[in-house]
Each structure stands twice: as C-alpha cells, then as structure tokens.
C-alpha cells in the first residue's frame, strides 16, 4: 500500500502543478494574442495563438477531470477535497474566459480606433497580472497556505486597477463621436477583458477561505 500510495500521490501532485502551469501559460498567450490584435489585427499569428489557447484549455479540462477522478476514487484529502475541486473548477472557468475572449476577437473583429489601443493594452496587461498572481496564490495554497493572503492581496490590487482602467476606457469611448453600435461593441470587449480580472478576484476570495481552513 505504502509505495503505491506515494507513487500515485506524486502523479497527482504533478497533475495539479501542471494544471496551474496551464493557467500561467494561458495568461501569457492571451496577453500576446490581444497585443498582436491591437497592433496588427486578425493575422495568421493571432490564429495560431488562439489555437494554442484552445489546446491549453482542453488540456486543462483533461487534467481537471483526471484530478477530480483521482481525488474521489482514492478518497484523498477528505478535509479539503471539496475546496480543491471548487478551486480547480473556477480556475478552469478563468481559462475558458481567456479562450472566449480571443474567440470573440476572432469572430467579431472589432475595429479599435488608435486612441483606445493604449487603454486596451493597459487593461490586458493588468488582467493578465491578476491571473498570474492568482496562479501563484493557487500554487501557494497547496504548498504553503500561509503565503496565500499576500498573493491574494496583489490579485485584489490588480483587479481594482483593471476596473479603474476599464471605467476610464468606457467613459472615453462613450464620450467620443463613434456610432452607438461601435461604442457598444467596444464596451463589450472592454468588459470581456476586464471580466478576467473579476473572475481572478472571485477565485482569490474562495482561496482566502480555503487557506484559512487549512491553517486552522
């Protein structure tokens, strides 16, 4: 029992680490893809990035299912199993948001006037920072729950900053001479990108509780 238990445990540990690797990689690819769109529009390279994020998302889905199956079939971490499943599922939603946002750019091909490009770039950078910090917080939850609050604090800061940028951007868009349809279209994209940071904050809120439960 002993050796078998430790071998399976090691495999599961690697899968959980791998799952958070997918989140980190997704956020890098997302940032590169949005910046590429802002700079060059819908190019072949953008499609490659989109395909990459699709692959990452489906690999993360496979990992999630495998982790969930092992946690239940081997009755591992009975105290924290529900928390871990909740965490992994919400992180998966965040990755789906990355994918959905790039698909929307690819399908709807919004026209982003030059004067808003910088705002979109700043917003993208900020939401990606929030997701990156969340990945660190998620990893810390498994190894050193005492470090989770420090990472979560940064996630909150980035989310607030992203909200401020998105509000400013939407105000500028609606104060412009653009057609209402264009304004609404651009607003959708601002909100779509900003929702990455909102989701990251939601996951961080959950993580804060899960970490307290582990520490007590």
């Amino acid at each position, binding site marked *: 029992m*002993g050796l078998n*238990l430790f071998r399976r445990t090691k495999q*599961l540990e690697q899968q*959980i680490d791998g799952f958070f690797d997918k989140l980190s990689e997704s956020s890098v690819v997302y940032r590169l893809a949005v910046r590429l769109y802002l700079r060059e529009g819908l190019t072949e390279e953008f499609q490659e990035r989109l395909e990459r994020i699709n692959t990452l998302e489906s690999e993360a889905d496979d990992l999630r299912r495998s982790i969930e199956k092992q946690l239940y079939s081997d*009755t591992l*971490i009975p*105290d924290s199993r529900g928390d871990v499943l909740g965490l992994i599922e919400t992180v998966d939603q965040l990755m789906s948001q990355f994918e959905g946002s790039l698909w929307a750019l690819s399908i709807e091909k919004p026209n982003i006037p030059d004067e808003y490009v910088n705002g979109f770039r700043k917003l993208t950078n900020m939401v990606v920072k929030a997701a990156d910090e969340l990945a660190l917080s998620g990893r810390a939850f498994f*190894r*050193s729950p005492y470090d989770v609050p420090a990472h979560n604090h940064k996630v909150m800061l980035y989310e607030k900053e992203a909200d401020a940028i998105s509000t400013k951007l939407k105000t500028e868009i609606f104060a412009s001479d653009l057609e209402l349809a264009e304004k609404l279209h651009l607003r959708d994209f601002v909100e779509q990108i900003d929702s990455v940071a909102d989701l990251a904050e939601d996951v961080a809120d959950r993580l804060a509780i899960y970490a307290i439960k582990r520490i007590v």
Partner: protein
Amino acid sequence: MDPLILIFLSSGLFLGWALGANDAANVFGTAVGTKMVRWRTAAIICSIFIILGALISGGGTTHTLGKLGAISALPGAFMTALSAALAVYSMTKSGLPVSTSQAIVGAIIGWNLFSGNPTDTSTLTKILSTWIICPVLSAIIAVTLFKMHKFTSKRIKIHMIMADAYTRLALIIAGALGAYSLGANNIANVIGVFIPGEPLPDLQVGTFIFSSTQQLFLLGGLAIALGVWTYSKRVMMTVGNNLGRLSANAALIAVISHSIVLFMFASRGLEAWLAGNGLPTIPLVPVSSSQAVVGAVVGISILQGAAGIRWSVLGKIVVGWVVTPIAACATCFFGLFFLQNVFGLVVQ
C-alpha cells in the same frame, strides 16, 4: 479443563469484547471516520497490536490492579468482571462516555467491601489520581505536539497531496502504537481479576509452556480483537460526531497524545528508566482510553480558542467518572451476595 472455568471467564471476555468494540474507535475512529484509513486495514492493525501490547507489556497494570484486590476465587472474579461489563454496557446504552478502567476498579472495591478485605488506600489513591492526570497530561502533550506541528508546517512546504499521504501513514503508525498501548494498559481490566486464581492449567505447545497468566493475556487480547472486528466499525464511523469536527492533522495529534499517555501508564521500561535517573515514576495503572482522547481534543480546542469544545460532552464525562465506578461497585456487591447466597458459590 473444567468447562465451568470457561463460563466464569466469559464475563472477562465479554468485558474485553466491549473494550475492543468501544476503545478501538479512540485509536482509529477519526482515521476511519474521515476515510483516511480503510476500516479493514485499521481492524487488522488494531487486532495485531492490541494482542502484542497485552502479551508484551500487559504485566505492569495487571500487577497494580492485583494490589487493589487479589480475588482468588473464580466465581468472585466472574462477578467482578461481569459487574464492570454491565456497568460499561448500561453506560454505553445511556449514551454516557464510559471507561472500563473505572468500571473494573469500582467492581474490585465492591468485591473488597463484600469480602471484608481492606482496600489498599495508597493504591486506590494512585489509581484515582491518574483519572485526573490522564486527560490533563494528554491535553498537555496534545497542545505541545500541535504547537510543534504548526511551527514546522509554516517552515516545511510540503504539497497538500503529499502531506495527505504522510498523514495517512502517520495515522496508521500512531494507530498501531495506540493499539499496542491500549492492549498493554487495558488488558488488566479484562483479565486482571482472574490472574490471582490461576484458573487455567499450563499449556504445552512444542517446547513452549504457557502459564495460566500468559494464556489469560492471550485470551483477553483475542476478546478485545473480536470486539474490534465485530462491533467497532459503527463506533469508528460515529466517533467524529462525538468529539466534534477535527482536521486530519488534529486527529492525528489526538491519537498520538492518547497513545503516549497510555504507554506512559503501562511501560515498565519507562518506570525503570525514570527510577534509575532519580525521577518521579509514573504509576502503572489502567487508564481510560476515551478520557485520554477527550483530554487531547479539549487541549487542542483550548489552543484554538475553546470554540470547538462541546461542554455537554465534557459534562457527561464528569458524570461518567462518578457514576461508572459507583455503579460497578454496587452491582458487584449485590451480585456477589446473590452468587454466594442463591448459588452457594465461594466468592472470596
């Protein structure tokens, strides 16, 4: 061998069965209840180590009980063990936490009262003091271990999944130690009263000769193991509810503290070492496994702000402390009267 001997021994074996059914839950209850360890694994380990503990280290506490009342007549021993078993049974039925140690001590005093033998007050005081010391010591050990655990877990960054595997392994090792200590400490409750009467003839197996005492230790151990296999599963599954919610790590610490305390009150080696170094010795007395666990849990709860303490359970334990020995004592006294005057058996 006279078949009547087996009938007389049956009350001790019944008490052993009850002990196995109830106290195995103190050792493996939380581990099995939280599904960290399979019940089958727990039962196998528990049975083996209880028997080993009884055979290897059971002598010390048995000697102390013998000093409290040396029951030489088998019918007297039968009624003493039966009174203790009935007290345990009725207390369990009433939902009160019960200690076989307290029941047997009460029953022995009942025999002393009936037979007119003086109760050795120094031994009695020694035993009574351990009923207080045992949970307090268990709480102190649990608090120390819990603080050490917190200190190290902040510094050693082990993945949660790997920590889970280590905790499972530790629960099994602590459970084995706990089962050994339970066998060593509590075997005296089960067969201690039968030993002075030497009811069984020597048994020769190959070149080995087993004395009456050795056979009784083995029989008692087997009776406890039978209790583990036939009834402990249900108790293990519900033990978590009785003690309140515990994390796997807190449960592990509670089991380790319980095992250390039971071992301390049973180890002749430790007693000799303490005496050899001029330190005060720990009396070799059968103590309550349940109270040791409860002491540890209360210690951990106090450390966490006392919010998790279930005061009603604590109140019941205090009631149990008083009621169990008195009930066993009274039952034994009247039971002996009955045996002597109705069946005409020699009980002293």
